[in-house]
């Protein structure tokens, strides 16, 4: 299902940030911003903090528990072999292994979570409003549900270089 969108084209993050802040204060429905790079302010102006780190902590905790159980099972219960007079379950080596496995699994799962949540995968056909968004232009995409004329005016005011109105399929932008 397609719907009409208004797009403001910017070439400067600072102007864009101001525009976003203003539009947000006016409760304009900003769909997304596309750009070649970003900075902290720009991100903060539009989005809320990602919850990825919290998930990562959970994953890490689970990994530690599972790895510990695995190590204990293999070296004490399943096939207890003696090495150089050490106790069957010697803790120091386990610390090293737990540490590394946790990092590996947490890192891996985090990347997976990110790719899944952001719906990125190899071979995905990227939807981009314009090739220049990966070069030197920032595209501010707005829903036309909110008074379009006013938006165009505001965008002009905040220094948009161009303003485009177009049809976009809804699912292509989050």
């Amino acid at each position, binding site marked *: 299902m397609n719907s009409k969108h208004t797009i403001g084209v910017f070439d400067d993050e600072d102007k864009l940030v101001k525009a976003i802040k203003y539009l947000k204060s006016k409760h304009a429905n900003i769909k997304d911003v596309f750009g070649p790079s970003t900075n902290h302010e720009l991100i903060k102006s539009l989005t809320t903090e990602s919850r990825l780190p919290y998930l990562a902590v959970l994953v890490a905790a689970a990994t530690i528990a599972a790895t510990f159980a695995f190590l204990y099972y293999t070296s004490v219960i399943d*096939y207890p072999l003696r090495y150089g007079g050490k106790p069957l379950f010697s803790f120091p080596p386990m610390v090293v292994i737990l540490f590394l496995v946790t990092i590996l699994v947490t890192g891996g799962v985090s990347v997976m979570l990110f790719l899944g949540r952001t719906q990125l995968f*190899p*071979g995905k*056909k990227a*939807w*981009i409003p314009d090739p220049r968004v990966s070069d030197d232009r920032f595209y501010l995409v707005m829903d036309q549900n909110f008074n379009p004329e006013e938006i165009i005016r505001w965008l002009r005011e905040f220094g948009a270089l161009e303003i485009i109105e*177009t*049809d976009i*399929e809804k699912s292509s932008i989050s």
Partner: protein
Amino acid sequence: MHNLRKAGKSRKFSTTTACILSVFVLTGFLSLSSFIMASHDENPQDSIHFSRDDLRKGERLFKGLMPFASGLHDCASCHYTSLPDTINWNPSAYDLAITWMNEEDYSIREKLAMPLGTRMIEDHQGMSVTAQEEHLLHAYLWEVARQGPGELKAVPVNAIIFWGLGLLMALALLDMLLTKKIRSKIPHVLIIVVGLVVHMQYAVAESRNLGRTQGYAPDQPIKFSHLIHAGENEIDCQYCHSISRFSLSGGIPSNETCLNCHNVIREGSLSGRFEINKIHQAHESGQPISWIRVHKLPDHSFFNHAQHVNVANIECQSCHGPVETMHLIRQEEDLSMGWCLSCHRDTHVDFTANPYYEIFARLQELMLNGELDAVTAAELGGEDCMKCHY
């Protein structure tokens, strides 16, 4: 503006695809090389005193494609022309051929006229061949002896499934990316996922079984039935395999051991005289019988029969399976290290009866006090590497 639907349909060549393809190519290559390695060289050699026509006619006669003058319709229905995979109590064509090759001036006509033993008499009642037919049969048997036993062509079910699935996956991938005959992507993905899972499972199973021969039951030079000997006649295992009590080797009995009984018992209930004759033949010719080894451990594993049979009193059947129910001996267990270990972990040692074990003073005391019910082999060091590998 971009049409997103269209974009979704555009050609994709993902890394997964690349992976699958490379795996496919790799397996193909390896399988090809393995087939090449497994193929046998054959030495084509022309017949010496039989014409090709004789050979052809003889074969047709033997297989019943050409009638005998006497009305006997064929030989092959009883005497298989290829080595059977299950036990067939009649001698196969090859068996007959090599047996007779060793005899001077053998004559099929004579053998039919004067059958040996009750079985042969019963089975060959009223059969006769003419001199011409005999010549043709001789020709055929000569050819059979020369060519050796036919290789049994097992149907490679697994390979068919493996390659079939591979083909299906390739097609699915091709369709998904290029031809797009089927609109929905679900079948494609399903086929590829299922295919990958099956392939993986094969790979795991086969790599586990690398070098293993569980279920191996080759044809033996003599159709010896453990069922008849150990089962029906209840001969003790160690009557024949006596050295298993004293030696690391299980001990395949010498020809002489067979003759202990078969000096008297000259005819078997199933195979008549033919198979038992082989023992006598070996005895006369001095050529020992080349049995095919069934239970093979890797070179680096030392297994001592005496330890298990004599000391531990383990039943032969625990490792060799229900031998007394098998006509043809078969490798019942996989003989993997895990299989050995689990037995060592579970088997209780006869700890108090053998004074040797008194060296385990602490355990003996616990046992006496009733604090310990039983001791497993593993607890006495049965899990040590150097119990088997040295």
